[in-house]
Structures are given as structure tokens and as C-alpha cells.
């Protein structure tokens, strides 16, 4: 009976369409291993991809793999950070699920005095919750990355986010606490500032 139901397509799942914004990351971090501050450095988008794919951070990133912020069409803020395959247009691995802490939308901003803008914009505070990804020797185990993003929207359509960026420039904060394993050694990286840089390229993900 179950087979019959499946065969009839009664349980077919509906698909969701999302925008994937190609981004890079530069996260200033203090890395702690075995209880001591081992180093200070910059955690890059390539590092995030490599660990999420179970590779050493020194590895070259395949050209088809890119770091992507996913905005589901109809939503106003990203809901996940993924490693996206731009050849097969698929999600290779979800690095973090994002909690949208809050959103403010506006077409007129009074932030820097009175200035008007006909374009819809949105500011949001995000908390990206890193899950387990990668392998036993190189990978992510947990963590959180909290940062504001600033978005511009087109004035029509459901997939309406035009651009997205987040950074700690202009006095905004960008903090986190990411944990993983690198070459078999667990580490924690406290992020003290950083930025998520959108390249301007977007892709479509249908799941």
C-alpha cells in the first residue's frame, strides 16, 4: 500500500528555490589549541570550505566549490552558509544554519542624517550555527558566528535580494567562536572581527 502511494506521487515533496550569494570571508581569529593561544591569524573562506569538505586548510579549493550564503526566495535574510557546487548547482555541504536574530527594513534611512533611498533595504543580525562537517582529521565540530548584514532588494519578484554584505568596518562588530579539528588536533578559534564579502555573483539552488 505504501508502495502504491509512493508510486502515485501522493507524497511527492515540493521544491524550494533559493538564491546563493557567492561570498568570501576574512575572519580575524585567535586560535587556541591544548589550552593555549597558539596563534593569531585570518580564517579565510577557503579555510572554511576546506574544513567543511574534510581537507587540510592548506589544500587547493576545487574551482567548482564556492562559499555561499543562501536566501530562500520570499525570505529577507540568509538561512544557511553552504559549500556550493556551481557546476552541478547543488549544495555539497551545509556549514552553518543561520538564525536571523532580527531584521529592520527601510526605504528611507535616518542613520546618517536624513537621506532618502527609493530602494528597499534591510539590515539584519545573524547567528550562524556551525554544525558537524568534514572528516575526523579535518572538519568543523560546532560554533557560532554572529554578524550584521546589509542587503539591497530589487523592487519586484520573490527572489528579490540584490546584494548582501557583512563586515566589521564602520564600527560594527563581527564575533564568533568556531571549533573544529585540523590535522587531527582540535582547536577553537575566537573571532574578534571580520567580514563576509559578496562577490556580486549569484546562483540558483533548487532543493
Amino acid at each position, binding site marked *: 500500500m505504501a508502495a502504491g502511494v509512493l508510486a502515485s506521487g501522493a507524497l511527492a515533496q515540493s521544491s524550494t528555490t533559493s538564491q546563493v550569494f557567492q561570498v568570501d570571508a576574512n575572519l580575524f581569529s*585567535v586560535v*587556541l589549541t*591544548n*589550552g*593555549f*593561544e597558539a596563534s593569531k591569524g585570518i580564517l579565510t573562506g577557503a579555510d572554511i570550505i576546506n574544513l567543511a569538505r574534510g581537507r587540510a586548510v592548506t589544500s587547493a579549493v576545487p574551482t567548482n566549490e564556492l562559499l555561499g550564503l543562501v536566501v530562500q526566495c520570499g525570505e529577507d535574510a540568509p538561512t544557511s552558509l553552504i559549500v556550493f557546487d556551481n557546476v552541478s548547482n547543488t549544495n555539497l555541504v551545509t556549514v552553518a544554519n543561520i538564525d536571523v*536574530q*532580527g*531584521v*529592520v*527594513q*527601510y*526605504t*528611507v*534611512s*535616518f*542613520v546618517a542624517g536624513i537621506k532618502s533611498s527609493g530602494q528597499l533595504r534591510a*539590515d*539584519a*543580525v545573524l*547567528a550562524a550555527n556551525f554544525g558537524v562537517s568534514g572528516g575526523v582529521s579535518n572538519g568543523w565540530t560546532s560554533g*557560532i558566528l*554572529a*554578524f*550584521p548584514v546589509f542587503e539591497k532588494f530589487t523592487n519586484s519578484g520573490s527572489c528579490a535580494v540584490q546584494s548582501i554584505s557583512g563586515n566589521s568596518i564602520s*564600527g*560594527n*562588530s*563581527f*564575533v*564568533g*567562536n568556531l*571549533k573544529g579539528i585540523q590535522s587531527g588536533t582540535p582547536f*577553537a578559534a*575566537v*573571532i*574578534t572581527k571580520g567580514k563576509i564579502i559578496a562577490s556580486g555573483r549569484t546562483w540558483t539552488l533548487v532543493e
Partner: protein
Amino acid sequence: MIASRIFRTTKRLWLGGVMGGMMVLGVQALAVTVSNEVIDVTMSMDGEVQGRDTHGTAFAAPVNLTNRDLVNLALGLPARTHVPEQAVLGLVQLPNTNMLPLIVFDSRGSSNAVTVGSLTIDPAQPTRKLRAGTVFAELNLLNVGSISNRIVSGRFFFAGSNAKFGTNGCLTKLDGTGVGTLTAHFNATNAMDALVYKTRFRTNGNKLGMLVEP
């Protein structure tokens, strides 16, 4: 003297009476009180809130909140108004724990006027072996206040580069900057989300007084 001490005292209470038909005489009950030091907290929040003008046009209005506003809202008083002198924002020093209560401390009564929330320092932060270093902390605020002036919730994340801990594991210094959101009633019955793009949470370990609790 170590930075934080716990004093356990007993009050001897002698009870007498008839319980369950049985005469009970001279039963000694022990009431235990715990005292912890409360240290200073300075917090600021810069961000924006959603606004709409008379034409319904959405705009982003800047917001800047400080200790005064948090204390007022937690006590159910309007933000931006005068804070009772004895009401001070403070962090309760608990040894060897990663979750520290954030309270409005009544410095006259040495009591907790209201618990505002808790600051959690990641337990896996191994910098405590050094008793100083970079830490990550999360501040969660509770639903406290009155109907029209109230903190509904808040979640903030901080990174601090020079946190210090005493030999007993008590946090003695933290200067962290971060990001978060505050949901609150500001002279209204509807809650409003304040996006906070830069917040600073600072304690120098200055003692405000002893909090005595049963």
C-alpha cells in the same frame, strides 16, 4: 583575600508544635545563606530599530542604549529616565562556573532587585589555564519589567581579548565587543526589536557589594 568568597552561615531556628498528631519539640532547622560579590558592569548598545513615519514609510531609526536603559526597563521604568541611585547593574561572581547572573543590584539592601539575564563564557575556553586571554561570551536577557517598559529578550555575543580570572575561577575582568538583538517594550505595549551592531560589555572587577541570598 581572594576575589570572591562564599560565606555559608546558619541561622538556628527552634520550632515547636504539633505535627501530625505528634508533639515535636526542639527541632533544629538550618537556614543557609550564600554571599557572593557583585562587580561592576558597563554596557552600551548601538544599533537601530524599525520605524514608520506617518505615511507608513519604513525607516531605520538609530538607537543607543546604556546601563541606565537596561536598569530602567528591567525595573519596569521608562528608558532614558533617572535611575534610582541604589539600582546598579552588576555581575554576580560565582567561582568555577561559566554562567554568571546579570542583575540589578540594590546596593542599599545588598539584594537582587531583579535578575536581568546571564553571561555565559564558553566552558571549553581553555584560556582559564592561563587565567587571562581571549574569550567568547554570550549574554542572554530574561523577560523582565512592566507591561509598557520591559525587556522581552536579548541575545548578545562578545569577544574579549583581555579577560582575566582569579585563582578561584571567578571572572575578574572582561572588555568585550560584540553584536546582538534586544527585544523590548519602550513606553509601549508592543515589543520592538533593536538590532545592535556594536555592543560593549565591560567589567573591571570593581566590587559593588555583597549579595546575600538564602
